[in-house]
């Protein structure tokens, strides 16, 4: 950095000059201990030999990845074919997470728009209302949802008493229930970033476009969306990534009938299988998928900024 160039936030002060690494040091320690070290450990474990009933033997092995991708039949002696079991579990989780993201976007965008277009004084109240349910633990909220929608729960009792339905809706233990749980769990992660983007939007741009005879849809697509896009993408990532590893909603609301990525990995460590290298390998594969999603996002961001 050239001498005399402004250093630090806003470049208004030189007092932090040359001490950047010292200030970053705590973050590096925290990232190192709590992020990099566990991920590295996981990467190493995924290439080790499994010990029966949990644990590892320190011998290099590709068995975990082999088990993930190749099917050798129940007894392990058939010629290998592509293993669809785990790909299927991953695909189901990705599909669930994607659907939850779309639902959150469809509801979250208008919500954020609504809040951002209120008077500045009342916005904070609306935001406050959005976050209130999140003061309660996720587990408790998911169990409450289960109580609400079960066949003998208040929702069904209410509809039955009004004779809107004659039989309980049978919502519990369905994919719909899982979606409802994910949607309810992660909606604010969509609303808040979009709100932040919409709040910065200059509404005179819409007026200018309207003066130039742009239709409502044209204004939305060509004027508003490009401006709030980073908020939408950030919201989508914040909803998609945790939904991908979610296991509370699938277990409690979906009846745990099928493995999701989260429960498949859990089973390797806490369940009967006790196959740590395989659990680590599945985690690494999941991590890779998430990294790819984030990289695509980062590249798009760079392109957008370069424009």
């Amino acid at each position: 950095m050239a001498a005399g160039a402004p250093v630090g936030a806003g470049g208004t002060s030189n007092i932090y000059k040359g001490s950047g690494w010292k200030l970053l040091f705590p973050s590096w320690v925290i990232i190192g201990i709590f992020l990099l070290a566990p991920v590295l450990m996981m990467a190493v474990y995924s290439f080790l030999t499994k010990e029966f009933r949990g644990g590892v033997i320190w011998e290099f092995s590709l068995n975990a990845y082999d088990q993930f991708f190749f099917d050798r039949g129940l007894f392990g002696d058939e010629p290998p074919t592509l293993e669809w079991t785990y790909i299927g579990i991953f695909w189901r989780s990705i599909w669930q997470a994607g659907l939850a993201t779309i639902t959150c976007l469809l509801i979250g965008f208008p919500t954020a728009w609504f809040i951002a277009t209120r008077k500045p004084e009342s916005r904070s109240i609306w935001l406050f209302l959005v976050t209130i349910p999140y003061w309660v633990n996720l587990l408790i909220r998911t169990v409450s949802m289960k109580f609400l929608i079960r066949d003998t729960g208040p929702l069904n009792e209410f509809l039955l008493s009004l004779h809107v339905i004659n039989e309980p809706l049978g919502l519990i233990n369905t994919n719909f229930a899982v979606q409802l749980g994910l949607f309810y769990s992660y909606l604010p992660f969509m609303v808040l970033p979009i709100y932040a983007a919409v709040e910065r939007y200059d509404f005179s741009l819409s007026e200018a476009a309207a003066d130039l005879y742009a239709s409502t849809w044209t204004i939305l697509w060509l004027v508003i969306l490009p401006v709030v896009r980073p908020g939408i993408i950030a919201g989508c990532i914040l909803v998609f990534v945790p939904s991908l590893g979610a296991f509370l909603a699938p277990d409690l609301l979906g009846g745990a009938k099928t493995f999701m990525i989260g429960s498949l990995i859990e089973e390797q460590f806490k369940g009967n299988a006790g196959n740590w290298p395989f659990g680590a390998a599945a985690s690494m594969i999941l991590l890779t998928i998430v990294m790819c999603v984030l990289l695509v996002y980062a590249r798009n961001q760079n392109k957008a900024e370069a424009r």
Partner: protein
Amino acid sequence: MRKLLASTAVALLALTAGAHAEGKLSIYHWFEYIPQELLDKFAEEYDVEVTMDTFDSNEALLASLKAGKLGSYDVAVPGDYMVKIMRDEGMLDTFEASELPNFGNIEDKWVDVEFDPGRKSSIPYQWGSTSFSVNKDVYKGKLDSLSLIFDAPAELKGKINVLDTAGETLTLASLYLGIPQCTSDRSQLKELNALVQKAKGDWASFGSDVAKDVLVSGDAAAGMIWSGFSAKARAEGANIEYVFPKEGMIVWMDNVVLLKDAPNRENALKFMNFLLDPENAAAVTNYAQYTAGVKGVGEFLKPEVANSPESNPPADQKGVFVQACPEDVQVLYDAIWTNLKK
């Protein structure tokens, strides 16, 4: 997570904070399995600060100890086959019968057990059975066969909860088929695989710690369950009957074991001795509604517990312990389970 539900809901941490306690005792226990008053009583009598963490399956207990928790707990409460596994893994300390003044209170039939011959590392905690219960409002037919779960009648289809552990669910399925546990016979394993695949179509959910809740709430009309849990569900208002299937049921015994590298070995032995006192053993039974393996509990039991239908199977009821399979066989059962939930 289902695991989270149990451990969060009932995790009893830092139970008795005796400010001037002489020593400590760290327990690793199942959820909802010991009355708080009994822990308080022990803490007071021996001036010991008691802490307890909970787990919800034998496998979760093993995983946690393997992942580095060995050395931080004094006692744990594994089931029969898990005692053997932990013993084989070298996770248990041993004691002499003379170190426990109440050792003689152990019922004779539970002293020389296959999973810990002569009781060198463990004492009985409670024993009971695993079978299933059926809501009598929903199904009015005869209740005597595992076919109600594995080949469900029309009334129960789509209303069945099964335990979310491979060991219990696949063992009951094996009993239904009449095939041995830990078999490596290919045709038998294929038969087992086909049975659970087909039966799953009639199952509403998999869940262990919700096994009681789904029967009480009516989410499930039939559900695999442990005997004492079924008694509790009945007490909470579910119109259910615990079934003693003609094909057989699972019998199990949970045991208090002395863990290797226990930080408070002396207090652990005091606690084990305390639990062998008939009055204290009866307090656990009155709470958990299983059966103590201790002599002389009769006079301390509540009559409704002593006479509960769940704890009094017919004299000729067949029951088996779950076996710990060797590795080459266990992977086949794991594959069937994964295949079932894929």
